[in-house]
């Protein structure tokens, strides 16, 4: 057991854990944030996607002992805390989730995509979202919802400028 300090959703958590515990279990069982899901454990499904300093990573592959000192994590609980993110609004508008289990990961990947590319093409969407599996088969809606979110966000930006 060793002591670790991690920053999640701009809160610092102190915890004791074995060095090889993957971040997904740290988040779920030590920090108590259950929105990040376990799906495969080998970075093939994307259900455990979180942001590490703004970039999407698979939290099942990151051991607690390997977490960089400057790491700031964002999980699904940190997205749209005050008001829903455009991605979440679009997800609701187009009724994307079915079971919803993979959607935390989908949304984390989509939020990161939109930050990088405010109006992504289908090809960019496919590339950015390809690591996130959805067994319910919501892919067509995910694509449409990302386009919608881009529109919502752009409208917001232009109305702020006005």
């Amino acid at each position, binding site marked *: 057991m060793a002591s670790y300090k991690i920053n999640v959703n701009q809160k610092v958590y102190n915890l004791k854990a074995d060095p*090889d515990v993957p971040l997904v279990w740290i988040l779920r069982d030590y920090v108590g944030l259950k929105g990040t899901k*376990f799906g495969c454990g080998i970075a093939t499904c994307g259900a455990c996607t979180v942001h590490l300093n703004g970039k999407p990573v698979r939290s099942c592959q990151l051991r607690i002992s390997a977490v960089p000192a400057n790491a700031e994590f964002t999980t699904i609980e940190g997205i749209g805390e005050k008001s*829903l993110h455009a991605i979440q609004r679009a997800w609701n508008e187009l009724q994307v989730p079915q079971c*919803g289990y993979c959607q935390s990961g989908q949304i984390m990947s989509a939020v990161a995509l939109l930050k990088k590319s405010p109006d992504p093409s289908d090809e960019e*969407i496919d590339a950015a979202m390809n690591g996130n599996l959805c067994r319910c088969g919501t892919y067509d809606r995910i694509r449409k919802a990302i386009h919608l979110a881009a529109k919502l966000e752009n409208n917001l930006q232009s109305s702020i400028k006005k």
Partner: protein
Amino acid sequence: MSVPTIKTGRRDFLKTSGLATLGLLIGLDAEAKPKNLSRSKAIPSDIEINTFILIRPDNSITIINPRPCMGQGTIQSVPAMIAEELEIDLASVKIIQSDGKRKYGAQTSGGSTSIRNLWLPLRKAGAATKEMLVRAAANRWNIAIDLCYASNAKVFRKDTNASLTYGELVEDASKLDMPTEPILKKKHEFKILGKTTKRSDLAERTTGKAVYGLDVEVPGMVYACILHSPMIFGKLISFDDSETKKIPGVLHVLRCERAMIYRTTDSVAVIASNWWAAKKGRDVLKATWDHSGLDKTLHNEEYFGRCYKAAQSEGIRFEESNDFSAKFNAATQKLDVSYETPFLSHVPTEPENATAHVKPDGTVELWAPLQGPGETLEEVSKYLGIPTVKIKIHVVLMGGSFGRKAYMDFIKEACFLSNKIKLPVKVIWTREDHIRQGPYRPGMVSHMQGFVEEGKIVGYHHHVIGESILGQVFQGLEDDQPEPWIGGEASVQTNKYRFKEAHKVSWTNVKTEIPIMWWRSVNASNLGWGQECFIDELAHLAGKDPLQARMEIIEDERFRKVLNTLAEKTNYDQKLPEGSGRGIAIVNSFGSTVACSITVSKFGTGVKIDKAVAVIDCGMYVNADTVKAQTEGNIIMGITAAIKPGIVFKNGVCQQSNYDNYPIMRISEAPEIEVFVMENEEAPGGVGEAGLPPVAPALGNAIFAATGVRVRKLPVNIGDVNSR
């Protein structure tokens, strides 16, 4: 997190709510003859019944939903049937899950039954309750009933527009007799049913707040990771846990068991204070197994070899018109081919998990993502030897299921372990456990024979060959008996084809030890492949367009409308560009008929899937958007089942273990999808599964149209359609 607790009866409700007022509890008995449960207790029954409506004096309304949600939307669509007739806004209602008690009737989400079986009972429950509330208001105002009407959880009087809330009326209403034949709304009067409604439960699935089985936490809980036999049914000889016990957090290593429906297998469980430690401990366990014989019996090649051998012999006849064999032998234009579908894993993104607490006082609490609370309650009671009244089941959201979480092996594991240590135990399977341990959709062979005369398909024989769920799992099939479930699905009563000269459906049970179970759309997904590709082959043999050839042998009006709609929506008459091909298929299953069109274009040595269009006739339905979403999901899962690797056992061991070698479709491979829902006033059919069976054959037929290659064995490598 908090897991909602279900009030199991009016008395409990009064006791626990702390309110000195009455709640109204409504239920319907087996024959859908309502009884006022405030006076007489519900009669336990296995037949569909069972809904509860709780109205509090403050006008807050709770609906108890008896059908667990695995993503198919029953959490909204089932309560919607009550809300429609009760005249309440679904968004303001609290919905909780039933806990498996018999008074709620059949509670399994499965077989696409939730809407079609509850359509009348739940609407009657809502309507009867509304009538009682209206009568109570009329009595209060001392006016005639027809001067009152219900709207938005209130009863209004027509003359003065004064109103009373349901909460204000509930005490009086609960003393009235429940009408036995309440008046139900007509389709044109529906405000919720048959419309496009947003699922209010989806919001929390986008914020990480939704609680799935994996997310359940109970004070004092410990975690278990279980070592199963690498050949599933191996007998445990011994194990060495010396390395396991060195891992910090590991608390116990116990012999465990996996109770499948028809047999129980050995396992070893590692229990730890956190799941990662349990998994690490599991991974370093050294176990010795007796695997004798399993290397031979868990072997795809051996099984399919026997299936193809069976295709050379007559099966057991399920149905036949005229003497098919004689006519087939005499026919000049005929085909005799076999189709194959692979074993498949369910792979819901949430793996199997369950949390059980067998308490020292002899009571049990259970939290799990499960499809059937009623069956789970009965099964767990039998398994632990504890009466059902002492068992409390909390149904938690399923992160997908597709049939897997109707199988209670993982739930019984948690019960077994908690019973040993009397602490709350949470069992979590790894993805590898899920893929390698099964159960699976069975792989099957369809031996097809057919003939054409004067450009028309007139003779057809579907010989279904393989293992039976009824036989293997439920031990309910005699060797000389045609499989009734499969026969029914392959029957011309189901597919509506009329073959002028002769037809036959037959069956050969080729048994296997590879464990099987239902998988979304069950055998319809196996049978649709052979049936619909073969009809396409016969159409080409007859020199006919596949749509036209089908129209010539289908008289059923609803089927014809579905096919015509598909033709219209896909501009069927328009020629596709060179190198593109379109395939169609139509399958009737679970009480609904779905036609699918897939277009592909040549891409190197293979094809690219460009677009999928489906038309579904499910009769009347609850939520148009849910019907579409389910059909979209069926298209993705159906294509995945056709183009991605199946489950292969070799010398006793499943060759697949995780998404790296058992891939499912990713977004970059997903085609554009369009779904159209037929409008009519027919009784509701199933929605969760019916969209899947026509998908693979539509693809196979499209590949033929584009490339001239006839695929008969799934999966197909669409990157190189000639490869085998």
